[in-house]
């Protein structure tokens, strides 16, 4: 049987506020356990929640960026369940009326564009953390994270392959970074993904029974977990069995998913509107000022790169995959004096080095200004592209800026026509046989002469000028 994979993703985006969703405790990562859990966060008797304005602002920003409906009135509800990292015994979330509904995100896989529907994005508070090690058969509870603002972005079951799922996630990840509403740090859990996966016979309308894989914390794991789950479900189905609707955990070390609670009780969360929190009302002014504060979004930036820098659609796409990369590129371009050449260097040499050393852009040892300075010296003929690569390497290991390397190593391109003519004359004189052959029509030999001259000048001769002089002298 031909199977079709159906994937929906739920992404928890941790908002980059200073304080928690409903209390004034800090959300900074890495503090000593329970030192950022105030009386509201540990749910002392009598405490009450007060909503963080910036969390609403950030959720609306996201909603606007995914062309969604912003609900003027949304409602906080309590999701009731017992768990030690959930101090109140309920999570404040949004249920019937979320702040954001019906959005979309465009993705691209192998050059094919596709639109993924976003059902909703709602505000909710994070839970604390359970630490299972070292407490003699006890679990330790750290509530620093409890109450941290999240936006849960729920997609439609629109994805059909692990590649599409990853493309969607990367797109969303880039977007929240663009919007500056999340630091995007997946290791620290700032951007977490649950994947709902089901299989159905190709052509069938009805969705199959799905399994949910919880808390996958890297793009690679998302791909692997989904791949594993697809195979597992096909095995089950082709073996005549049924997929169980359940929550599964991805074990990266073993590259497998496994059922989280064998005897998981049927959840009955008893959602109801939180009586401590009146409805969240957004006035037009709030939405308009949020709109006005939106940065240039990826699609618009991509188009601008094409128009302003004359880049190809592909290059513009690559350079706008993240806000940091786009900003980096624009700085290089501004300093380089040739936007196209700047694009080649950023997506060529720089990308290759970063890739080779597994570094993120913000760890690159060469700043955008310095790279721009290097490209500028190609543009103004101070150095050749080949020499520039050597200088780039020197800069990468901390050799300073391009100009000082050029100076100290005497790498300045020889563009003085008198000097070049002299070198050409000497080279012709030293190779009379080849000069004769050239004159007899073997014009390919010009390459040989250029090579000799470059060797003699350690690559510093301006190749364009050398070519012209050679043609004149040999002709």
């Amino acid at each position, binding site marked *: 049987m031909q199977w079709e994979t159906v994937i929906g993703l739920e992404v928890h985006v941790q908002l980059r*506020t200073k*304080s928690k969703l409903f*209390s004034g405790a800090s959300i900074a990562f890495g503090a000593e356990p*329970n030192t950022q859990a105030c009386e509201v966060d540990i749910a002392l008797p009598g405490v009450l929640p007060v909503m963080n304005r910036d969390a609403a602002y950030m959720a609306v920003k996201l909603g606007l960026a995914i062309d969604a409906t912003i609900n003027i009135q949304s409602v906080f509800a309590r999701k009731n369940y017992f768990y030690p990292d959930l101090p109140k015994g309920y999570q404040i979330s949004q249920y019937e009326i979320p702040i954001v509904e019906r959005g979309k995100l465009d993705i691209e896989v192998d050059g094919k564009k596709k639109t993924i529907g976003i059902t909703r994005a709602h505000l909710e508070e994070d839970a604390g953390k359970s630490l299972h090690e070292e407490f003699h058969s006890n679990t330790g509870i750290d509530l620093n994270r409890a109450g941290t603002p999240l936006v849960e972005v729920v997609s439609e079951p629109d994805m059909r392959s692990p590649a599409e799922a990853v493309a969607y996630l990367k797109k969303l990840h880039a977007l929240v970074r663009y919007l500056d509403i999340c630091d995007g740090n997946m290791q620290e859990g700032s951007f977490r993904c649950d994947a709902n996966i089901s299989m159905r016979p190709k052509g069938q309308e009805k969705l199959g029974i799905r399994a949910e894989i919880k808390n996958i914390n890297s793009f690679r794991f998302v791909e692997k977990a989904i791949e594993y789950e697809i195979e597992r479900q096909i095995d089950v189905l082709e073996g005549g069995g049924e997929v169980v609707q359940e929550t599964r955990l991805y074990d990266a070390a073993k590259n497998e998913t496994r059922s989280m609670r064998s005897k998981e009780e049927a959840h009955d969360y008893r959602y109801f509107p939180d009586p401590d929190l009146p*409805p969240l009302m957004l006035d037009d002014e709030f939405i308009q000022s949020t709109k006005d504060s939106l940065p240039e979004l990826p699609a618009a930036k991509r188009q601008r790169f094409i128009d302003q820098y004359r880049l190809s659609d592909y290059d513009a796409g690559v350079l706008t995959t993240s806000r940091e990369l786009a900003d980096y590129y624009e700085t290089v371009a501004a300093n380089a004096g040739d936007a196209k050449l700047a694009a080649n260097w950023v997506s060529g040499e720089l990308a290759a080095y970063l890739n080779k050393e597994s570094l993120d852009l913000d760890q690159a040892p060469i700043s955008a200004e310095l790279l721009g300075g290097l490209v500028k010296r190609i543009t103004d003929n101070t150095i050749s592209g080949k020499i520039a690569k050597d200088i780039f390497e020197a800069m990468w290991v901390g050799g300073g800026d391009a100009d000082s390397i050029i100076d100290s190593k005497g790498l300045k391109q020889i563009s003085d026509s008198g000097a070049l003519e002299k070198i050409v004359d000497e080279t012709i004189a030293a190779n009379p046989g080849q000069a004769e052959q050239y004159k007899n029509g073997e014009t390919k030999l010009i390459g040989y002469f250029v090579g000799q001259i470059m060797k003699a000048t350690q690559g510093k001769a301006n190749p364009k000028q050398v070519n012209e002089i050679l043609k004149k002298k040999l002709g």
Partner: protein
Amino acid sequence: MALDPTDVRKIAELARLEISDSELTIYTHSLAQILDLVGQMNVVDTTGISPMAHPSDSPLRLRQDLVTEQDHREGFQKIAPATESGLYLVPKVIE
């Protein structure tokens, strides 16, 4: 609406309450009585009436995003049943 002891057991579990067999009889009886009482609501037709979740219509007030809380862990954990290394301790959570 009828309520039997199995329902009461289920509700008790949902609310994390342990109910002995003798208590079960008492609760089944009194909960059924209360459900009879609240069932009186059905004499009124409420079709189309918008539910009232809050006594006032005022919208949610939003606070500025500022860190206003200090660390009070020591004081908070003085009254906790079990702590170690700044963590609250609970019987092992099995996932």
